[in-house]
């Protein structure tokens, strides 16, 4: 499994890695291992999202980077300098906490100035005013944190960390407590600020939409390990594990038997129909006779009347029956029951050029070979399905 993100500027192996580099980081709590031998490379200047379900070890990882938790083993490097055992106040890293952790006895101005004052900065007043302007809180400087709204508190927490110009800014689900609308606008806000200041952001979230809209690179984390890492589109298009396939968007996973490689494709027997998967989308050894999962995104599945000509030869399956239709305006979601009993999800854009299918109607389904992916059969087909923020 490749876990190295594409760095914007390739530094190669010459000199130190510019950015945050984590190697075989492990954290054990008594008998429980929260983070298991984690490897991570966060290129400097990037917006990096750590995405995973609740309890998968995201906060623990961030806390180790911030120095608030001692790793059991492994190393953390920042611009080539080993900081694994440094005290939190000796690291050029700042955190926006999951619950903000603003100082209730200090006003907004002093909260934001806290880091600068500790480092005896000469330019406290100017910096604080600039920073409060950036987060649009100039008018609230003398209020105390409990008197601010959730969104305002969140911005104070952001300003308090950002003002120190850390090499890496850690954000631990900073938007978790906000309502949906505020959340969307804060996402844009944070992304804008990151582009403006150009620092490295590591953003923890369990909301896949949030990760996809904000990040350059996403690492999907599950039960203490990184499942896959890459650009949002890359992860979505070509997931390597069933967990990623289900957690990031939705996927149909169909049990198949491998027939073996054939040119740039791997041919599989999909419940009686032969289908081919491009080799670079195959994430399992193509051993003849072995079982595997074929994955296909619902919006990539084409639905057609029985016998209608289709443009995806080789990956077409007849004999489906529409078992459920839900019309949601921009698209229609079908559930199609296949001859072997599985229900396949199909999303169709409502372009207006085709009629809707009715419940009980016979249909064929098909897809272009380059959209499917092949996954290891040992993985649980329902891993990552029941996530907290399922998009409706």
């Amino acid at each position: 499994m490749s876990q190295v993100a594409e760095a914007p500027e390739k530094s190669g192996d010459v000199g130190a890695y510019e950015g945050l580099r984590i190697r075989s980081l492990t954290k054990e709590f008594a008998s429980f291992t929260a983070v298991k031998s984690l490897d991570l490379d966060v290129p400097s200047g990037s917006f990096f999202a750590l995405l995973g379900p609740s309890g998968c070890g995201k906060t623990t990882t961030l806390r180790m980077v911030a120095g608030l938790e001692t790793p059991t083993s492994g190393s953390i490097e920042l611009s080539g300098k080993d900081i694994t055992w440094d005290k939190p106040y000796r690291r050029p890293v700042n955190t926006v906490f999951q619950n903000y952790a603003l100082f209730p006895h200090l006003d907004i101005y002093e909260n934001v100035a806290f880091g600068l004052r500790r480092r005896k900065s000469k330019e406290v007043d100017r910096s604080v005013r600039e920073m409060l302007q950036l987060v649009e809180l100039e008018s609230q400087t003398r209020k105390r944190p409990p008197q601010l709204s959730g969104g305002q508190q969140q911005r104070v927490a952001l300003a308090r960390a950002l003002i120190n110009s850390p090499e890496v800014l850690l954000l631990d689900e900073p938007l978790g407590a906000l309502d949906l609308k505020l959340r969307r606008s804060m996402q844009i806000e944070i992304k804008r600020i990151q582009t403006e200041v150009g620092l490295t952001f590591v953003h923890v979230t369990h909301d896949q939409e949030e990760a996809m809209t904000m990040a350059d690179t996403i690492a999907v984390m599950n039960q203490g390990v990184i499942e896959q890492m890459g650009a949002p589109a890359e992860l979505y298009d070509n997931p390597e594990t069933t967990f990623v396939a289900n957690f990031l968007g939705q996927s149909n996973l169909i049990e198949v038997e491998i027939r073996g490689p054939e040119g740039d494709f791997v041919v599989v027997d999909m419940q009686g129909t032969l289908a081919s998967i491009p080799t670079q989308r195959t994430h399992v050894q193509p051993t003849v006779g072995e079982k595997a999962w074929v994955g296909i995104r619902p919006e990539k599945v084409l639905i057609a009347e029985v016998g209608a000509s289709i443009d995806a030869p080789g990956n077409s399956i007849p004999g489906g029956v529409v078992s459920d239709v839900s019309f949601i305006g921009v698209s229609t979601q079908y559930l199609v029951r296949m001859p072997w009993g599985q229900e396949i999800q199909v999303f169709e854009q409502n372009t207006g050029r085709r009629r809707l299918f009715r419940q009980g109607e016979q249909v064929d389904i098909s897809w272009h070979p380059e959209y499917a992916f092949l996954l290891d059969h040992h993985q649980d087909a329902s891993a990552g399905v029941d996530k907290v923020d399922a998009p409706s």
Partner: protein
Amino acid sequence: MSPLQRMGRWVGQHLVLMGGLLVIVYMFVPIFVVVLMSFNKPKSKLIYRFDSFTLQNWLHPCTDQSMCSALSRSIQIGLLATVVATVLGTLMAFALVRHRFEGRAVANLLVFLPMASPEIVMGSSLLALFVAAGFGGQLGFWTILIAHIMFCLSFVVVTVRARLAGLDNNLEQAAMDLYATEAQTFRRVTLPLVFPGILGAALLSFSLSFDDFIITNLNAGNTTTFPMYVWGVAQRGVPMQVNVVGTVMFLVSIAIVVGAELNRRRQEKALA
């Protein structure tokens, strides 16, 4: 509406107010008497009655030397006991809240015990202890001090512990994350946030120590504190200067309460 009905309604509407006023009068009559008596010039020592107005009691509070020495002893013991109990108790509260150690649950429970047990039991067992340890002949200032520190300690621990338990320890981590060393974190974040609890504990300690009678009396030997002095002279006629002390104590408490309230209002106003 007949006048009778109207009166009935008025009474009905103001019943709660009247009740409240009566309770307040009931609470303040003794204090009023103390204040009044501090300006009294009695005809006879034995008849406790307002005879005529004078400022003599206020101008010469120490006519009875033994009263003033008892008073100053009480204040000394109170201050010393407050300082020692507050420091020790605060440290204990930190240990109980912040550290996971063997026997923590038991320690948490034991701290409550001195508060719950009757003073007469504590006082007599302390006396027994002092005598058994061979200090029977040296009962006085120091034994009283030790006793006072002991019973103040529980109250300090309980007060500070409540404050600490309500403190989000993410705040200290946030401070460390923002370049504050351990010492700076304590000074800039932990202490300011716990301080109201510590101050409350100190005030409570002083007033507990100042007016304790039972435990003090048992462990005082020949030494006299202010409450013991008042008790002692009660049979032969209390000098009017005792009322001066009472009035001053009352004014000081009021000043503290009003000061705290004003401070709170000022802060709120600054924020509005």
